């Protein structure tokens, strides 16, 4: 699939993040209005909409709230990578003329729980029969399940998890919107209260109310709009095991590997061409797995890569430059915030701006490794 002809022309997060007096829908529409204002368009210009979360009808709610009459909608719900998948799907519909301007909107009252309940799998679902009876309580007990085996397999110890936190905390110190901004040492990370051994609190993400939205259209139309277009070079998505406990290899995500490989093949660039990366980090081991599985470093080398400072300020591959989900924001489905930072870095307007970024990669997990998506973005159109 060629994706040369599509660009992100508008992008914004909610005015506030953290504890916000808005429902999930309110957060999605706040971000949408700001993203449309960012590119000088109005709801009347939008004819396609993508959004997913607690309701399968979320695109209709967002459209109704903003007065959009959509002729294309996508409510694909694959957890935290959903918005990346929406972007990938939107490219196809823009290129085939099914929609001209697509709004991808996300909002979640992850901290305050305004606007909807958390829904757990029922007792007859696979998770209900084979995971929940053993006291799993969401990401911190399921995403984390293979981490000890990962460390052992790669010859690492818990310092490898702490190193990720330390590097990202330094980025967060440059981001005035980040929740956790105080510098932290490896020892302080390791000595913090345990959430789920081997993970301490700083190794687990913050919980926020937040939202974000992007506006996508053809590269041709992007030329007439005010903001520098961010071109989509390539995308990939993949399904993974139905349950974290049934992954073929708990130390490597097959979904990460396939999504990453598909995105690079689509983009026509190599991992070595990536100058900045946002790697979904609900927990500190996910960026290590993503570095290896997406192909940015060879298998087994992620721990050393981070320990040597390559992902930190001044490093060869700045990663999670907002501070990431660990320090900046995580409302439950984090992919939108990762995309937003890749876009800001390519526009040259990030709080912790890296000089000269022309290719940025965003990679996100969905659910408990059940899904993954990778997007390669650039300041330049695909040749």
């Amino acid at each position, binding site marked *: 699939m060629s994706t040369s002809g599509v660009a992100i022309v508008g992008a914004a997060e909610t005015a506030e993040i953290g504890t916000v007096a808005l429902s999930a829908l309110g957060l999605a529409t706040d971000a949408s209005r700001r993203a449309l204002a960012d590119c000088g368009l109005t709801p009347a210009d939008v004819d396609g909409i993508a959004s997913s979360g607690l309701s399968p009808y979320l695109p209709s709610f967002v459209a109704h709230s903003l007065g959009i009459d959509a002729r294309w909608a996508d409510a694909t719900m694959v957890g935290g990578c959903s918005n990346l998948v929406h972007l990938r799907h939107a490219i196809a519909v823009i290129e085939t003329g099914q929609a001209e301007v697509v709004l991808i909107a996300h909002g979640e009252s992850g901290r305050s729980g305004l606007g909807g309940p958390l829904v757990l799998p029922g007792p007859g679902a696979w998770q209900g029969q084979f995971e929940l009876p*053993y006291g799993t309580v969401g990401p911190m007990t399921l995403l984390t399940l293979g981490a000890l085996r990962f460390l052992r397999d790669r010859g690492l110890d818990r310092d490898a998890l702490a190193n990720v936190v330390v590097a990202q905390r330094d980025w967060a110190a440059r981001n005035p919107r980040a929740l956790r901004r105080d510098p932290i040492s490896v020892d302080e990370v390791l000595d913090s209260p345990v959430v789920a051994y081997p993970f301490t609190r700083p190794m687990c993400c913050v919980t926020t109310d937040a939202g974000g939205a992007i506006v996508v259209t053809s590269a041709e139309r992007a030329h007439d709009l005010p903001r520098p277009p961010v071109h989509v070079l390539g995308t990939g998505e993949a399904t993974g095991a139905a349950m974290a406990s049934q992954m073929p290899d708990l130390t490597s995500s097959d979904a990460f590997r396939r999504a990453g490989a598909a995105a690079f093949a689509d983009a026509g660039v190599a991992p070595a061409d990536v100058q900045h990366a946002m790697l979904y980090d609900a927990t500190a081991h996910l960026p290590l797995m993503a570095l290896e599985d997406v192909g940015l470093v060879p298998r087994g080398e992620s721990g050393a890569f981070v320990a040597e400072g390559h992902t930190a300020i001044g490093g060869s591959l700045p990663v999670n430059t907002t501070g990431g989900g660990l320090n900046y924001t995580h409302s439950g489905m984090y992919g939108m915030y990762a995309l937003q930072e890749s876009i800001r870095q390519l526009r040259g307007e990030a709080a912790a701006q890296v000089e000269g970024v022309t290719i940025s990669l965003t990679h996100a997990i969905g659910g408990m490794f059940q899904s993954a998506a990778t997007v390669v973005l650039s300041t330049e159109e695909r040749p």
Partner: protein
Amino acid sequence: MAPSRPLPRPTPETQHFWDGTAAGELRLQRCRACDDPYFPPQPFCPRCASGDVEVVRASGRGSLYSYVITHRAAPGFEAPYVIAEVELEEGPRLLSNLLDVEPDPEQLPLDLPLEVTFESFGEVTVPVFRPRAS
């Protein structure tokens, strides 16, 4: 009364597994075409899609593949407790809990030999594991 542990509700495809645990057996399925044992239960092979499958009793022996020790209480659990990924001798892995061992990393080296035992909650019996002499 404290909230209780979430309990499984069998479906037609998984009934044999839960009948097995109630009878003190850990049951897997095996594909006759490719000879691979598999889990979770379903009436055809997840690798070759053949419906020529049989239910087999697992030895109940396995080892500790990976785990977390969660420090947050969950319904029916008193923190800290171990959520363990157990690799069965036959190959498949499954999630479970550990009995008869402290929730302490010093006591829980990876590859620790384990054996199945069973805990009943009303009408449902779930497989759990405890250390065994290797």
